[in-house]
């Protein structure tokens, strides 16, 4: 399987309620809560595109946009 390349971690700040589930369970600790208790991607370069944050988010506030690694589709 081709390795996925991260395009963008889209976070809907209006929907995020700051529960911290994505922050805690991110395998590479890409996400953090900011001063307003909303999630931000502070280390997007570490993202391995597992999309567990997107799937676990109870507020459906995260979308991880990726691109297939070695071919353009």
């Amino acid at each position, binding site marked *: 399987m081709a390795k996925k390349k991260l395009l963008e971690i889209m976070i809907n700040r*209006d929907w995020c309620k700051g*529960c911290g*589930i994505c922050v805690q*369970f991110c395998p590479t600790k890409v996400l953090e809560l900011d001063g307003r208790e909303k999630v931000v991607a502070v280390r997007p370069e570490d993202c391995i595109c597992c999309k*567990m944050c997107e*799937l676990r988010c*109870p*507020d459906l506030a995260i979308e991880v946009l990726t691109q297939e690694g070695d071919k353009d589709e």
Partner: protein
Amino acid sequence: MAVKDYLRERFFPHMWCPGCGHGTILNALVHAVEELELNKNEIVMVSGIGCSARISGYVDFHSLHTLHGRALAFATGVKLSRPNLKVLVPMGDGDALAIGGNHFIHAARRNIDITAIVMNNRIYGMTGGQFSPLSGPGVKATTAPYTTIDNNFDVVELAKAAGASFVARSTAYHVKESTELLKKAILHKGFSVVEILSQCPTHYGRKNKEGDAVGMLELQKTNTAKLGSKALEDNPGLIPRGIFVEKECPEYCEEYDKIIAQAMKGRNS
């Protein structure tokens, strides 16, 4: 279609508390529907009353928000009149097995082609944290300040005994597994029950010292084990996850059609 196309985005952010497992179940469900590439005009979601039942407002399918515990009765009516539609019935633990316990066992007995999703957070969240028939003994709730003494139902065993032809269990933590189980349940012909353990940090977690949503998800990880795994063999006290029943049985709508055909034999409609 993208996941967002299956949502009624105008109603977001939703009304569930921060860290509520029901949101994750909604997420898993729309991902399952998206991966199956179902047409949203061919899905009906029927729900009852409670935090869990509010899910029907957030999905852009046909939706019915009905009486407490009676979602399966309404769903049976929908399915019998329009058997080509996919009928999804998400219910809370109280909705499904206290108020709607009778509908639940009889829908399972008939093996009607409906997907019942039990969003089990072991508490009545919406009305302020009363214990439910799935709380089990030793749980603190607003109606049990000195802990409960009632035994709980095992949804899987109950559904199995009542005759459901697909029975599975997962948790909000194991979201990929939940999505796969929901996909299988939706495609299964017959009554399918998927129990998904959910977390209510506001009422259950706080009272029972299970911490916040993150702490409760950690418990879902440590207290459950996959069917047939070594962990479950070594520690039978863990809650098993996976598919418990998957069998082919006569489906109710098809059998009903046969009866109609038999009754109409020799008549010019």
